């Protein structure tokens, strides 16, 4: 078994009202970043786990996202990185 660090992004489902993202986008425009079109505020999680290989680590993490880390009704998740720890 090898130790892995898996990085996960969880973001609000596109099309759903994201008041937090909108507030941050407004603040960025106030700072002068006129080109900002939208901001999506979500969560970044890092899971450290033991797995037989990178594929197994990714599979396990995907199941964690489906069952707990992301809400399937309102959120999308993306496994951003799987690295040996």
């Amino acid at each position: 078994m090898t130790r892995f660090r898996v990085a996960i992004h969880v973001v609000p489902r596109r099309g759903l009202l994201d008041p937090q993202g909108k507030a941050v986008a407004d603040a960025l425009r106030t700072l002068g970043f006129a080109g900002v079109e939208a901001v999506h505020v979500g969560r970044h999680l890092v899971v450290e786990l033991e797995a037989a290989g990178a594929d197994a680590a990714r599979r396990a993490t995907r199941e964690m996202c489906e069952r707990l880390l992301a809400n399937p009704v309102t959120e999308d998740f993306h496994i951003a990185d799987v690295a040996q720890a």
Partner: protein
Amino acid sequence: MKFGIVTFPGSNCDYDAYRAVVDALGEDAVYLWHKDHDLQGSDVIILPGGFSYGDYLRAGAIAALSPIMNEVVQHARRGGPVIGICNGFQIACEARLLPGALLRNASLKFVCAPITLRVENASTRFTGSYREQQLITLPIAHGDGRYSADEEALDRLEGEGQVVFRYAPDPLQAAESYNPNGSMRDIAGIVSREGNVLGMMPHPERAVEPALGRPDGLALFESLLQRVAA
């Protein structure tokens, strides 16, 4: 009738629910610890308000995995009544007892205020003592109460009469924004398709005594009793 009130770490309306059942309704109630595996013969389960597990990850997400929730889900599958209030509604959604999810209020603010609701379905076992389309006032106190689901699920809820309470304009006030949290289709409370699980953001258990304002919440608990007596 015996009510089982689940206490999760961070629940803060369990005592209110107990007082509503025992003092105002005159029925039996028992507290159920989240680590227990026994509903102690409860006929009705109340998932109370609060901030279970500090709202970590998502409101209700961790509590939905508490040991007692296995028994609560089985109770619901047998047709047993479950009432999820505020955080309890969030927990019921996370446990998939009810469709949809509760998201951060559109205003990004915690809202604590009495609010006007319209009873959209007075034929459920939780609302039989109200009149259809009756306007009632109940307190709300939440930061994550924006009910959200996909359009298909919302259409199904409305088509099956599962929308029980909706935020409504107060007839005595000019209200441009009567929806306190941005809930889709002004939804404040829903029942499961089988009708035995109720989830609602407003607090009926905090509105059962005239000394604390309009006791419009009492009829909800009385409805359950009448259903049994009938």
